[in-house]
């Protein structure tokens, strides 16, 4: 028998009041957990979708010349001054402090080759990364899986009269056509895509790349920092952010998170009120009992602790149940607010946070009732004396 066992006996034998307290806190915690886990799941989904949008950072060789193209109309060839980019530069991209924010790094080598007597744009790329970056690419056939395979853009295949399985001779080397890109309405329709190393050999540019496309995960990622880090790491390169896309994504996620935090705050305030009202009611109901405790030699601190133990025990239990209820609700609700690619993220900090916050809210909200109980005059509380 100690204060803890008295508190637990009270909770156990006054089930209705304890249940009211637990359910009150549970609903609050479950709501907060649902909001946070839904937001997290939607954020992950949004991050995945960001990659669907393609690169949001473009790295090209630094040049002093002005662009001679506008709106997709080119008025001259690519003029590059100074040193171009190399695969060594690509490797250095992976050394920046914010490397964990880089989802895809896709080096590309561009050049022209002759096919059936006609000049054609050749793109050499790490095929897997390029397809990951350009998720809108749809291939009739399959992507190249070896250095001897290629994929043709929709218009290129039509102009060159290429069929699936054809052997295409490029600069004296044979490549098998494994797929044709569906029409994209972009420059991709005109190109032939081969493995980066193969393109380097064909174009006589071993180790060179023309540009690097980077997709950064940007749910709160420091895009300006990443740009600065890339510029420092690659002084020969021009690093350009597709800022509007990035910032609109960040803004949308930030709004969602802010809204969730506001709602969570309101719910926690209501939860605190429930605990406060319940504990005040409990203290009033137990005035006589508190008088007995005091008459038997309990210090004020003992009475305060007794009330707080009860509130904390009920609140932490409610926190644990609320976390489970919140995750269950997320399972039920997520398919209604996100598409099939969204999946629930079990976050340990959210679980621990649910316990800590429910305990803190329960403790703080019952502090005044507990202190009030401890200050009851024993004789008035007992009324018998």
């Amino acid at each position, binding site marked *: 028998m100690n204060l803890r066992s008295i508190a637990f*006996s009270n909770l156990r034998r006054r089930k209705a009041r304890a249940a009211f307290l637990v359910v009150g806190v549970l609903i609050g915690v479950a709501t907060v957990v649902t909001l946070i886990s839904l937001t997290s799941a939607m954020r992950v989904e949004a991050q995945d979708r960001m990659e669907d949008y393609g690169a949001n950072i473009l790295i090209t060789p630094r040049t002093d010349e002005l662009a001679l193209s506008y709106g997709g109309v080119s008025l001259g060839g690519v003029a590059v001054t100074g040193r171009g980019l190399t695969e060594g530069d690509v490797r250095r991209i992976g050394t920046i402090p914010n490397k964990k924010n880089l989802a895809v790094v896709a080096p590309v080598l561009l050049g022209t080759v002759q096919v059936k007597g006609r000049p054609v744009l050749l793109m050499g790329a790490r095929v897997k990364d390029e397809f990951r970056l350009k998720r809108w690419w749809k291939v009739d056939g399959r992507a190249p899986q070896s250095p001897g395979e290629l994929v043709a853009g929709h218009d290129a295949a039509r102009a060159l009269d290429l069929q699936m399985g054809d052997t295409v001779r490029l600069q004296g080397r044979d490549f098998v056509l494994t797929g044709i890109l569906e029409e994209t309405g972009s420059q991709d329709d005109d190109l032939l895509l081969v493995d980066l190393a193969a393109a380097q050999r064909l174009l006589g540019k071993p180790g060179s790349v023309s540009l690097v496309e980077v997709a950064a995960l940007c749910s709160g990622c420091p895009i300006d920092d990443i740009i600065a880090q890339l510029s420092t790491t690659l002084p020969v390169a021009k690093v350009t952010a597709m800022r509007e896309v990035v910032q609109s994504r960040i803004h949308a996620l930030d709004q969602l998170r802010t809204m969730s935090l506001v709602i969570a705050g309101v719910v926690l305030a209501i939860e605190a009120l429930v605990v406060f009202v319940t504990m005040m009611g409990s203290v009033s109901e137990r005035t006589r009992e508190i008088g007995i405790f005091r008459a*038997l030699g309990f210090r004020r601190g003992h009475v305060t602790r007794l009330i707080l133990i009860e509130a904390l025990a009920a609140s932490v239990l409610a926190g644990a149940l609320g976390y489970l209820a919140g995750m269950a609700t997320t399972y039920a609700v997520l398919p209604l607010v996100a598409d099939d690619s969204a999946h629930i993220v079990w976050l340990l900090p959210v679980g621990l946070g649910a316990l800590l916050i429910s305990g803190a809210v329960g403790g703080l909200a019952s502090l005044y009732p507990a202190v009030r109980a401890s200050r009851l005059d024993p*004789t008035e509380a*007992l009324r018998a004396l």
Partner: protein
Amino acid sequence: MSGFIEIRGLQKVYRTDAGTVPALRGLDAEVEEGTFLGVMGQSGSGKSTLLAILGGLSHPTSGSLAIDGIDVYGLLGERLADFRREYIGFVFQAYNLVPYLTALENVMLPLAVKRLPGSVKRARADEVLRRVGLSGRAAHLPSQLSGGEQERVAIARALVNEPPLILADEPTGSLDSATADEVMALLQGLNDDGMTIVMVTHNPENRRFFDRTLVLRDGLVECELPACDIATPL
């Protein structure tokens, strides 16, 4: 001061919306250790107020109280609560058992805040429950006990800390005469073992158990039996 309980010039004035109500008006008394003291008097005579002050529950407006040489209301802060726990065993008129605790748990209550092993607390509570004849009712809630049994649990609770002083407020007030006699016999047995008991009662029949009986009137000791007699029912 030489008595176990020394009361000097005790005054207690209650302040209400209607004005001040004097409950004790300079009461003096001295009680030796091991005395079974009865306190009688009409309603409003100051009996319960005296008991509350003796128990360290209600500060007197003026005057002093010493128990076992301790200036009770000179104790600072929570020392008064500690004093209640170590020196006083209360037996209330309405039993005042905690409804959600079993008889055994109610008896263990005064030990709850003491740093003792749980087994020691339980052994002590078992012992006093056996002493009051309720070993077989230890696991019962107060609502499952008769009035006499609840009174016995209340007495066991008062005894469990082995206090030198028991304060009992009308412990037989709501019991039938046979059960009341059992409870009084139990208290007398404790007194025979050397415990000092101060008991407030309306029932003149209880006088036969007391070593001394003070009669209060209007907040003062009117007389001590048998020097005076109680002519009118209290």
